């Protein structure tokens, strides 16, 4: 029996910004269910790599396979659909939609990814992150930790196969940091998702293995 195809497979990935090499990864794979960290100092290309995997950014050269799809060869419109359907993103700046209630933030993710509305799922997630009674509040009315949890709920609402998180814990105290990681791991397990976290937060290293360590100036070394 041949081994299952990796969830992520990067081949000959090379990315330059303004003539400067930012990423250079000859061959890197992540199997389904292999949670892990993407480490590296500031400016080493962690955010850039996550965006390339998510299909938000086209690399200068190389192949990006995600869930069996060759992202770089897809039309942009198809890439948008694949991203909506298979990938959940947590941004460092969260980027919640402040004009919408907490519940509507989650519903918007369902809608834009063309999933049928599922208010049960929305209510269940809000309960899980301890905001069940504040479904009609707005993101501005939340604490930083609550907003961070909402961002994670939004990333997993469609049960994506891959969750990419960019520095999700750097602004949190130890208690919140632990709770957040627990939430992510729990949700990943519940949805059979693979969790990849870009961070330089040392607190996470005790909980998850490093999958990739990027070194400035941006040359990859498999951990």
């Amino acid at each position, binding site marked *: 029996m041949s081994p299952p195809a990796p969830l992520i497979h990067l081949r000959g990935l090379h990315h330059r910004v303004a003539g400067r090499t930012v990423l250079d990864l000859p061959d890197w794979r992540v199997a389904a269910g292999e949670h892990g960290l993407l480490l590296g100092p500031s400016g080493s290309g962690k*955010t*850039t790599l996550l*965006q390339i995997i*998510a299909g*938000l*950014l086209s690399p200068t050269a190389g192949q990006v396979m995600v869930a069996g799809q060759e992202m770089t060869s897809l039309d*942009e*419109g198809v890439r*948008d*659909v694949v*991203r*909506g*359907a298979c990938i959940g*993103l947590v*941004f*460092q*700046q969260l*980027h919640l*939609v*402040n*004009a*919408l209630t907490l519940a*509507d933030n989650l*519903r*918007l*993710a369902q*809608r*834009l*990814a*063309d999933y049928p509305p599922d208010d049960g799922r929305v209510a269940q997630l809000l309960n899980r992150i301890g905001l069940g009674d504040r479904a009609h509040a707005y993101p501005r009315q939340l604490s930083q930790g609550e907003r961070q949890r909402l961002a994670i709920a*939004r990333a997993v609402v469609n049960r994506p196969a891959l969750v990419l998180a960019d520095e999700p814990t750097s602004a949190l105290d130890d208690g919140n940091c632990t709770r957040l990681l627990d939430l992510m791991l729990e949700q990943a397990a519940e949805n059979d998702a693979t969790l990849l976290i870009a961070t330089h937060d040392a607190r996470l290293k005790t909980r998850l293995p490093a999958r990739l360590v990027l070194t400035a100036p941006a040359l990859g070394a498999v951990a």
Partner: protein
Amino acid sequence: MTGTLGPVGLSLAYLRQNRLATALNLLLLALGVAAIAGLALIDSQMQGRLTRDVAGIDLVVGAKGSPLQLILSSVYQADVPTGNVPLSTLEDLRRNPLVREAIPVALGDSYQGFRIVGTTPDYPGHYQATPAQGRMFGAAMEATVGATVARAANLHVGDSFAGSHGLTPGGEVHAHTPYTVVGILAPTGTVVDRLVLTPVESVWAVHAHHHHHDDDGDGDRDGEHDEEHHEEVAGAQPPREVTAILVRYASPLAAARLPRAINSETGAQAASPATELVRLMSLLGAGLDAFRAVGVLLVVTSALGTFVALTNALQQRRYDLAVMRSLGASRARIVLQITVEALLVSGGGTLAGLLLAHGGLALFVALSPKARDFGINPLMVAPAELGLLGLGVVVAAVAAALPAIQAYRTDVARTLAQS
């Protein structure tokens, strides 16, 4: 498109979030549209009304004075008369081979603010006014009333009423010479709707009584004539005068000869409604143009405001739009979002403006009897309003174009990586 999170619902959520800016924009646009639409409404209704009332009347003959005043008072029933001319003027005109038709108009009294016009059945005939109930007036003191008068004063066939002296309400009541309603005219959309029509002889009879009474100088201001006075005037001869004569020419030749002949050879003046109408229009037109310019300025300002607001909103929302992309929305969905938002603002503003125009006009008509006299109907829709709605869409399209292009081109990855 629908639901709280479709392009419309999401736009509404954002517009709600920026309530103040949204409200200001809507207000600016609504005011501009209201100014333009209101003008279009007044313009089209007045033009239509003014032309309809004067149609077929080639010349108006009346006492010397302002020719515009003569036309306004005797054709539009909207100004005080210039005076009276002797009945012989009418008889001369009727004998003149250049004249096909000469209709007398004798003014002086009113009933509840509506003018009582002494004339002949040719006058309603000229406006194609026919009795909806009863019949046309025949004998003196018989009255056939216009549709608006009947409704407003609640007059029915068989009722009798007394006119009051003067063309505005509050004059002395001629209680001893009451009119009897013999007919009610069907609505015509012309000046006739607002008139009480009666033979010229009625006006003479009422005035004979009145003249005598005034000459008495007994200071009887309560409007009641006692029996003694009535006996005195019973034998008095009424002054045989009319206020104006509406003339239709028998041939084009008349236009060249008749006015000059009347103006130079008689004590009366002849005024051409067509000429005076052009003068009136240009007088009104200058005022309307200034008003219209203000409206255009407001619309342009609000278009710019919408543009600035959209561009601003987009600047603030570039993260949100990038997030929408990261959540699976296509570029087209983002452009649709911005376009819908622009359309909502401009469509809402335009609709509000049109409602405001009609509401304002209704208020204007309720407060100003003059507007009522001209028969302005606040519920009537001017064709220009459709054009304004179209203009609203164009404004939206222009205001949305640049932000939409910017949003289309936004580098999602770079935007999301910024903080």
